[in-house]
């Protein structure tokens, strides 16, 4: 039976919806599982129809956008009342996004710039529109400042795969097994040089065969993109042993695990997905299984359950992974930062770390999940997935991190004084969710 979902848009750009639509053909298998009861961007149900629903009538509510108007605040509360689970959808909703930078000023100054001072205005005495208008909040707020949030999907915008896999996961849908035999049976490293034997977390033993074997042929582990196989290979027990000790997982294996979560288990953790509270338990209450798998080989279920249990009990697990983990550039390259460069200066090469080439790149302090898209077109990360650690002084933390881990020949004081716009550089997406920030430039 299709489950009821609703999409609400607060103050933002619609980009999260566009990103969802960017799944294009990938949407087709998901749509029949959804009974969309409110989505003004796409379907014609009006606001009154949402209000008229009983409380808790809708299973999952996606709330996009930050809270800028009093109408946004009301809509957020309305969604909380009508939906069992609330997803903070996108970086506006999670962190406030770029418009949170408006929190530098008193709201009246902000309003005056747009409605009074703008050069092209021609009214004799222009002022803020009031007729049938909702009025503005004092500050831009992220969603969880006003209502309780059950899960977060960060990103500006979140990746389409991440949104789809979040939906699939929250609906309790299970990955379907593909072929009988596991990847290992066709793997070129099966008889000699098995990655599991070397301690690399490779998911070949429980993943379906039938792919081009590109990963292990290149020496990279299988991360499960073909989904589960109907039978497991003999090395599955070895993998099972590894996932029982996730607390000591290495950085490289963590990366493999994150990819596996998204591709195999449909848990879009690698994509900025974050569970608040015990969402798994809530899903379980509705009758969905604890492990997102079912009717699969017991070892596969066991492995999945161990991973899920670990994620549930160690919510900070994702926070140790950052954009650099998915960036193809070399850290410890031949380049060294000797002064801070502005983005328009020169043209960086495609191989070396941008920080080591002198640019401010937020990768080391930004949550993983994007796949390093900006870095791949030679643009530094500006932090849209949110910070890996929430500290009051993000600029200082950034300087400490890069001086310690990168080829950086400037002191902390030099680095911080050479960056002229601290708020726009270090908290471009997250200023509104920095609870210790009290305004001012």
């Amino acid at each position: 039976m299709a489950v009821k979902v609703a999409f609400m848009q607060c103050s933002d750009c619609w980009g999260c919806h566009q990103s969802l639509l960017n799944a294009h053909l990938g949407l087709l298998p998901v749509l029949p599982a959804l009974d969309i009861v409110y989505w003004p961007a796409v379907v014609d149900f009006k606001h009154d129809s949402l209000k008229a629903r009983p409380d808790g009538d809708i299973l999952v509510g996606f709330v996009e956008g930050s809270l800028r108007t009093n109408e946004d605040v009301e809509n957020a509360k309305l969604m909380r009342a009508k939906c069992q689970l609330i997803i903070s959808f996108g970086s506006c909703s999670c962190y406030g996004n770029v418009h949170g930078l408006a929190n530098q000023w008193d709201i009246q100054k902000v309003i005056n710039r747009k409605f009074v001072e703008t050069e092209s205005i021609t009214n004799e005495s222009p002022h803020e529109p009031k007729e049938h208008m909702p009025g503005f909040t004092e500050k831009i707020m992220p969603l969880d400042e006003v209502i309780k949030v059950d899960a977060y999907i960060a990103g500006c915008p979140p990746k389409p795969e991440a949104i789809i896999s979040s939906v699939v996961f929250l609906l309790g849908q299970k990955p379907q097994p593909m072929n009988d035999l596991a990847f290992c049976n066709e793997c070129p490293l099966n008889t000699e040089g098995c990655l599991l034997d070397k301690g690399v977390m490779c998911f070949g033993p429980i993943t379906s065969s039938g792919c081009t074997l590109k990963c292990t042929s290149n020496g990279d582990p299988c991360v499960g993109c073909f989904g589960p196989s109907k039978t497991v290979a003999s090395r599955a027990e070895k993998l099972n042993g590894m996932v029982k000790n996730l607390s000591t997982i290495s950085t490289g294996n963590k990366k493999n695990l994150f990819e596996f979560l998204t591709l195999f288990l449909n848990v879009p953790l690698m994509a900025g997905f974050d569970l608040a509270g015990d969402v798994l338990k809530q899903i379980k209450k509705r009758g969905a299984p604890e492990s997102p798998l079912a009717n699969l080989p017991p070892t596969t279920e066991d492995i999945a359950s161990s991973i899920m249990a670990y994620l549930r009990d160690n919510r900070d697990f994702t926070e140790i992974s950052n954009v650099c983990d998915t960036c193809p550039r070399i850290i410890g390259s031949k380049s060294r930062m000797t002064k801070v460069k502005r983005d328009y200066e020169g043209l960086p090469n495609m191989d070396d770390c941008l920080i080591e080439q002198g640019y401010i790149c937020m990768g080391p302090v930004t949550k993983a999940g994007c796949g390093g898209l900006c870095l791949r077109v030679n643009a530094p990360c500006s932090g849209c997935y949110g910070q890996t650690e929430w500290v009051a002084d993000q600029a200082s933390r950034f300087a400490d991190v890069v001086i310690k881990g990168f080829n950086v020949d400037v002191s902390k004081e030099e680095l911080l004084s050479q960056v002229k716009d601290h708020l726009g550089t270090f908290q471009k997406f997250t200023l509104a969710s920095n609870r210790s920030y009290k305004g001012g430039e």
Partner: protein
Amino acid sequence: MVKEIVVEPVTRLEGHGGLRIVLGDDGKVKDAQFNITSTRFFEKFCEGRYAEHVPRITPRICGICPIPHHLTPTKAVEDAWGVEIPEPARKLRILLQNAKQYSSHVLHFYALAAPDFLLGPFADPALRNVVHVINKMPDVGAMALKMMDFGQKLCAEIGGKSVHPISAIVGGMKKPMDEDARDKFLKQVGEQIEFTKKTVEIGLKVVEDYWDVVANVAVVPTYYLGMTKNGVHDIYEGDIRIVTPNGEKKDFDIHKYLDVLGEHIPEHSYATHMYYKPAGYPDGIYRANCLAMINAADKMATPLADEALKAFRDKTGPISHHTFAYHWARLIETVEAIEIIATLLKDPDVVNPDCKTLDVEPREGNGVGVTEAPRGLLLYNIWSDAAGICKKLNLLVATNHNIAGIEKTLMHTAKQVFEDKALDGLKLPDPWIK
């Protein structure tokens, strides 16, 4: 008794808006409002940012058309600092802009507009959406998805991300296209041209079916705001062109925009009312977007699109005030976009690494950048200080150019509907799908 008809929210659009029509005792329309209830003040919080960072912030104004919101402020900063970009960068940007135009126009036609026409205006609201269209017309649905996918993937390839691109930088582009990627898109572009032709056929059939509506409902003479380069339709660069209600065309240098474009702050909308300044408010209210662009153009930039323009003019005359002809105009622009994409994918400059000048120095100044976004003219005016910090920003955003025009059209149409009962005798076709 006064009766108020409220539509809240207006669905199948990007953004927040409601309609409000007030009817008096006598059945006359007393007021018609288009209430836009959200705004986020980009004009203010871009102050104090590095000028070259503004193009990384402003795409967040619109998730459907973030590419013009990336390229236009970049052009404005280049204008302020006196930076010339290499020709390969210019071509990459034009390709990127047209990739966006293509996917956005296809999205608009199939996902936002088509449900009204394919199901008819009186269909069950629960079904009147693109999901139902895809279910009932799977072939057309799959084609529409493939077209949007092609456009969005091309945007992502050049822009780094299709939603909120990052590859343009003051001085050019951070990276050319990879040859492999270019070859991949080049292989697909022939099929896309065929899809576009099929879409135009569907569109023309809809126009024919609904001609009684197109020709008689919401035909509202206004001014029009477009952009042309030497009179030719152009969405990346050119002059501002105003078309008067009787079809007279006037060109203005973009730096003179304050003489031409006035902004009236209404009482009932956060989106402001734009008008042609010399004609005054409200007489000078204009409309923007594709119909305005088609009215402004002497000719289209590519052959198939130019033929399509001629067919359009044969039917509507030299200037069209038909609001429902926006959909047709949009298809003409879609044809031009795919033709430009096909041409530029063959141009070796799009894979040329010489796409960024090293000669970039901030200087104090005030720069203007203009492009035509999928929903109208987009103008950025950025004031930079000597250190290259953005001190002030004025933004005239695409959709905003249409707000006053939409309200004027709403008033006209409300009178037609409630006073003249114009819908009663209209010829409507049988719905294509139910």
